[in-house]
């Protein structure tokens, strides 16, 4: 044990909440160190005497550890390496784990040499907003930007896929308590006893909050006894959940609070079954915000050196971590906090040179202890400057004049390697503000506190500006009882323990110390007092302008230690009170959160659902190459056993499939089409309103094609609907609009026409659908249905039959997308694969083949059917050549607005067929139609190619569908398709969009 101790020269021999029996190895910048269980990286570094840990953002000034919590502006390190690399991690919030690896950032080649230290010398030229005033000339900003970007940034980005997993968790409770300090614990005990369902979250590994960092006594015993006793009681209550290492980062609408639980960040890596972090979504009836307060620095010259830290942090290092952050300390304060610090440091064997108090009167109740410990107090004085490049070695002290604007007597220098600073405390009002609350300024504590109640979130304790421990304990108890009452629960008793704290003497604001030199307000972004005065001089005086112009509070700490100081200095410059200046908006997250838990498990292949039809496995086993259709996977084409995937084989396969359907028979999986079951006695009337054509006379056992418009008169979707029974219809929609059509119809039924007796239900997934198409399809069907007459008269075009196929109930629709005689067969999804296989077996005699979306697409182009590329939400029925489907005898959705002049313009592009004049050229979808391909831009555009078949195996040459302006169609037979992106242009002949069987004889026979 002595061996470890000897390496940790700043470690105290006893005390603290660390486990000296559990040494932990770690490295910083490649150097090996040892700390103890219970340490943070920061406390372990301090224990080993490491003071310099990073470089600042802009001037690359040497920086050390400034705080002991999540507010840390300086000590940002790159944690871990390789695929677990985490840049910009706060050393003060990293729990030490075995093998921890950390590196300093924003320096090159190393922390001591760092060549961009030069910026510190150039700083007179780099004041706030300097970049807005130059770099405007040639060669242009993009040139300068290259260098600026390299200099900016902090840590290195990540390059690899994250090996860790993330989860999400949803919980409900009566009372959510955020913060497990004295206020939160007290509230939890009362709420728990009252029987409320309580969740208490705290971002530390254990509860206690500020009590862990102080030498408080409760009922004459060290405070941790009380904490342990409360935790034991709460653990025993079934209605209370305690979540440690869980940071509530945002308070959203409807009293929903989100938190990140660090499940395994404190381990070298997650255990096999663990995720790294978990996102909590907490829906609370009431919220108690016991989020504490953050100490502020004071702004004075060179207030950023390693060795300068917040007073409360210095206390926490000696009290909680048993680490001496220095050997010889000066304390600089404007409130009582400095004295507490002096006593705790002195008690730990640190030489306290002086307490420099900017106030005139030293609180009397400290005198006894000051005398006992022989600590000098220098009243009405301030720290003017500090010295020591890589770490503090001395401090200059002077007396403040009456008005606080100058230094009176001769300043003097004392040596010190630790300067603990307290400028007062700012309540952590972040979550309150997220919830919609507006903070107000409180003069007595010189800070913003919560204003009016927002949602159901009540602030208590230090987070509402009550800094005395007794007040915190009492407020936690009181608010919990108030809430219990509001929730109709019995109020609970709790005896508030007695504390040993002194009366608090009010703070006297001291925002900045007079004098020259770099006085940092925002340590991370290197915003100085002079940047703020410059912003004021130039008129960037609103707090938001101030922030944006100087970058005040824009670092990873979001200005937790700097915002108020900066705003106060601006207020002084403007000679206005701070409350008038206001504060910038507090935005979530409270502390930075990783992206991983926000995505949870929805990564990689699970990013979006993959929908597969009932026949998917068969396709996969039979050479199908799949294509994405929305979330669906569909067979694009099928390769033969001997064929390898290649462009040639793809072309071959597609041609083969088309020819099979055109000459014999094919089978295609159309399960992805939207299917909607429509029932009710007003179904026909409803369809009549939804579709543009007439539906009242459709007989039972018949299908009809229809198009739907949106209310604005443009085409929404198309498909067939069949009448299965008197009051029972079955609708199909396009694959991509399936969900939208259902919602569209539900909207009209529930909101506009609630009196119609109609019910609609999606049955897309209940039915597997396949189209049996080709001149021999009837032969296959009749073999499949030996007992049913399927000849043209008994089962005519657009006929619908409900039959049994080998015991499987099936609906057969004689409809056609391919232009051939065709039957669409629907069977319950569970039987999809069985029937699919049966059809292929029966069809063997006719050389049946499955075909994919490519062949289907080519055949629909040959037939001039419109699909997705034509139904793009901008086309009218007339544009698509479907004007004959617009009934003039009735009203339907869109019938009123489709007559607007712009939609009836003769010059609107209309659907045409397009054939390359050379009968060979492959014209790309997305090519633009122009009169002359040699024109220079801007070129008048006459239309575009919407769908292309590079080869129509049926016609023996490529064909396309496209849109051409109405006025051109009348006068022109030829047009050019240009694709400047591909440097291509082809002359095309404009034809009828129906290339194949224009009289539709094949599908009627």
């Amino acid at each position, binding site marked *: 044990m002595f061996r470890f101790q000897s390496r940790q020269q700043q470690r105290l021999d006893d005390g603290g909440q660390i486990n000296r029996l559990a040494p932990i190895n770690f490295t910083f910048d490649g150097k090996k160190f040892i700390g103890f269980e219970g340490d943070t990286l920061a406390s372990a570094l301090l224990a080993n005497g490491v003071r310099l840990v990073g470089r600042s953002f802009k001037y690359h000034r040497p920086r050390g550890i400034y705080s002991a919590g999540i507010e840390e502006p300086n000590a940002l390190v790159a944690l871990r390496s390789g695929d677990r690399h985490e840049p910009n991690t706060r050393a003060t919030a990293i729990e030490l784990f075995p093998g921890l690896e950390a590196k300093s950032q924003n320096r090159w080649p190393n922390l001591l040499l760092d060549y961009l230290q030069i910026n510190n010398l150039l700083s007179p030229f780099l004041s706030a907003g300097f970049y807005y005033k130059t770099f405007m000339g040639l060669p242009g*900003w993009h040139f300068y930007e290259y260098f600026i970007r390299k200099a900016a940034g902090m840590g290195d980005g990540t390059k690899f896929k994250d090996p860790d997993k993330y989860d999400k968790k949803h919980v409900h409770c009566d009372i959510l308590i955020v913060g497990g300090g004295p206020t939160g614990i007290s509230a939890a005990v009362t709420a728990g006893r009252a029987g409320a369902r309580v969740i208490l979250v705290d971002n530390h590994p254990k509860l206690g909050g500020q009590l862990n960092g102080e030498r408080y006594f409760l009922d004459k015993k060290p405070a941790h006894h009380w904490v342990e006793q409360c935790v034991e009681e709460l653990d025993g209550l079934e209605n209370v959940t305690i979540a440690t290492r869980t940071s509530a980062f945002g308070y959203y609408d409807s009293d929903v609070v989100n938190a990140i639980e660090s499940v395994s960040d404190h381990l070298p890596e997650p255990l096999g079954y663990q995720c790294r972090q978990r996102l909590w979504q907490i829906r609370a009836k009431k919220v108690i915000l016991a989020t504490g307060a953050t100490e502020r620095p004071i702004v004075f010259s060179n207030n950023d050196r390693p060795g300068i830290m917040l007073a409360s942090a210095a206390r926490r290092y000696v009290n909680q971590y048993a680490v001496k952050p220095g050997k010889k300390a000066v304390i600089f304060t404007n409130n009582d906090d400095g004295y507490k610090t002096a006593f705790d440091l002195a008690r730990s064997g640190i030489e306290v040179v002086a307490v420099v108090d900017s106030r005139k009167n030293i609180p009397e109740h400290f005198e006894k202890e000051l005398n006992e410990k022989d600590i000098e107090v220098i009243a009405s004085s301030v720290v003017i400057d500090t010295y020591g490049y890589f770490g503090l070695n001395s401090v200059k002290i002077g007396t403040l004049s009456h008005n606080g604007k100058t230094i009176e007597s001769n300043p003097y220098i004392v040596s010190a390697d630790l300067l603990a600073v307290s400028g007062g405390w700012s309540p952590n009002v972040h979550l309150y503000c997220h919830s919609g609350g507006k903070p107000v300024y409180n003069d007595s504590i010189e800070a913003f506190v919560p204003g009016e109640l927002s949602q159901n979130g009540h602030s208590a304790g230090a987070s509402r500006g009550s800094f005395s421990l007794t007040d915190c304990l009492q407020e936690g108890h009181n608010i919990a009882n108030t809430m219990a009452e509001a929730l109709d629960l019995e109020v609970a008793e709790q005896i508030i323990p007695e504390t040993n704290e002194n009366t608090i003497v009010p703070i006297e604001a001291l925002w900045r110390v007079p004098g020259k030199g770099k006085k940092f307000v925002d340590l991370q972004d290197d915003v100085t007092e002079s940047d703020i005065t410059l912003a004021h001089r130039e008129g960037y005086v609103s707090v938001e302008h101030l922030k944006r112009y100087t970058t005040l509070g824009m*670092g990873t700490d979001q200005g937790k230690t700097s915002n108020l100081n900066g705003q106060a200095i601006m207020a002084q410059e403007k000679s206005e009170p701070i409350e008038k200046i206001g504060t910038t908006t507090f935005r979530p997250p409270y502390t930075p959160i990783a992206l991983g838990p926000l995505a949870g498990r929805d*990564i990689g292949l699970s990013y979006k659902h993959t929908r597969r039809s009932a026949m998917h496995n068969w396709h996969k086993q039979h050479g199908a190459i799949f294509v994405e259709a929305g979330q669906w996977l569909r067979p694009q084409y099928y390769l033969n056993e001997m064929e390898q995937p290649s462009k040639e084989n793809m072309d071959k396969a597609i041609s083969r499939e088309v020819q099979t359907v055109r000459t014999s028979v094919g089978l295609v999986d159309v399960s992805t089409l939207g299917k909607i079951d429509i029932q009710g006695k007003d179904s026909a009337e409803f369809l009549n309103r939804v579709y543009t054509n007439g539906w009242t006379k459709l007989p039972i056992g018949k299908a009809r094609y229809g198009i739907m418009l949106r209310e604005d008169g443009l085409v929404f979707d198309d498909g067939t609907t069949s009448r299965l029974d008197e009051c029972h219809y079955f609708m199909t929609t396009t694959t991509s609009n399936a969900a939208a059509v259902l919602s569209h119809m539900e909207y009209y039924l529930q909101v506009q026409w609630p009196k119609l007796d109609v019910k609609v239900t999606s049955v897309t997934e209940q039915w597997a659908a396949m189209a049996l198409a080709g001149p021999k399809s009837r032969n296959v069907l009749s073999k499949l249905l030996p007992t049913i007459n399927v000849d043209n008269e008994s089962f005519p075009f657009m006929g619908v039959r409900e039959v049994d196929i080998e015991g499987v109930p099936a609906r057969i629709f004689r409809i056609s997308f391919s232009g051939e005689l065709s039957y669409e067969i629907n069977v319950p999804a569970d039987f999809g694969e069985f029937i699919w296989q049966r059809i292929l077996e029966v069809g063997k005699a006719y050389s049946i083949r499955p075909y994919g979306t490519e062949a289907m697409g080519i055949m629909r182009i040959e037939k001039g059917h419109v699909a997705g590329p034509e139904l793009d939400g901008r086309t009218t029925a007339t544009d698509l050549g479907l004007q004959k489907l617009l009934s003039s005898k009735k009203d339907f959705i869109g019938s009123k607005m489709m007559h607007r002049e712009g939609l009836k313009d003769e010059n609107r592009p209309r659907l045409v067929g397009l054939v390359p004049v050379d009968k060979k050229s492959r014209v790309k979808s997305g090519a633009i139609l122009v009169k002359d391909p040699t024109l220079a831009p801007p070129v008048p555009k006459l239309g575009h190619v919407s769908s292309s078949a590079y080869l129509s195996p049926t016609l023996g040459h490529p064909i396309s569908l496209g849109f051409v302006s109405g006025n051109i169609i009348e006068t022109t037979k030829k047009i050019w398709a240009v694709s400047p992106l591909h440097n291509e242009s082809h002359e095309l002949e404009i034809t009828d969009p129906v290339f194949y069987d224009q009289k539709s004889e094949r599908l009627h026979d």
Partner: protein
Amino acid sequence: MAKYSIFNIIKNAFNEDKNWARAWRDPEPKKSYDVIIIGAGGHGLASAFYLAKNHGIRNIAVLEKGYLGGGNTGRNTTIVRSNYMLDENAHFYEKSLQLWEQLSSELNYNVMFSQRGVLNLAHTDSQIDAITRRGNTMRLNGIDAELLDEKQIRKLMPYLDFSNDVRFPIKGGLLQRRGGTARHDAVAWGLARAADSLGVDIIQNCEVIGFEETGNKITVVKTSRGNFNCGKVGFAVAGNTGHLASLINLKLPIESHVLQAFVSEPLKPMIDHVVTFGAGHFYISQSDKGGLVFGGDIDMYNSYAQKGNLPLIEEVVTAGLAMIPSLSRLRITRHWGGVMDMSMDGSPIIGKSPIDNLYLNCGWCYGGFKATPGSGWVFAHTIANDEPHSLNKGLNLERFKKGRMVDERGAGPFPNRH
């Protein structure tokens, strides 16, 4: 106005920066203005600037209820591009892009317009067809566009997910190299400084609370800082358009929705372009300070609150990790929201209104930032001449009544779907 330059920076440095002048005045409002622009965001300020510069009108006030540049100008993802397909948009946004290219020197204020390239990814054949059509249209309009295949994209952006473990593989993309980003606040400040130097009064903390009308004309604009007589009035208040219009009983084809964005901790250069995902709503770029700037879809419900909710952020992040898996361990420092004036066809309305001397500049959806100089250019023209510029003719309010919508997405009259 003292010129900004490297020489002046050096000169002032020797004087501890004590001699820099105010970037713009804080004037006492006058009683009467020839033109009152409501809204001192990028659009309002650009309009005032070009009214003064191009049209010689100097008695102009720009009224701002908060601080200038505090609306969407200061809370967007700073993307500038002109990759539009429909003529009404394409030529307008291209003009705007051309103005961006000159803006820093025109304003003598570095707006950090960085032409780093904007890439739209495509993941399916039909998306390739769609970007082909868009890119071809751009090229025929004289706007730069390149179609990249997977290999070219891999070379340019190796951090995208090209593995087999990906739901929607990248098939190609449309690159506009002249597109990029700009420093949003600097645009507002540069415009404010330049307009101010031409005599424009920018009046902050001045909320419009009503209007007085005579005949079909606005005669007085009533504000929290007094009443002003006016010759002409222009609205340039983005998400607040609906509210402002209600003060004069005007209903518009606009809904206000909240759009969120978020930024990561600062990092060394990692992403050198603007990239948009094709299989979800997500776009990303890296600011010069090092933060990754993320954006996605709107929250979907009407809102005037400049804050959103987490589910949308989760959705955007999920799309982000689908596109760039290595983002997973990086951290967000801040997320915020802006109020978007979503129009019924996804395109802006910029032109005359049913009231004789009122001009509208609204309906920017989430594309307003890139339009800033172009919007000011044509709005100034429209106000000065009482008729639209040829570039905003098609972007009029009447188009909805006439059925001449400018619907790039084909989403129809559903403002939250554009």
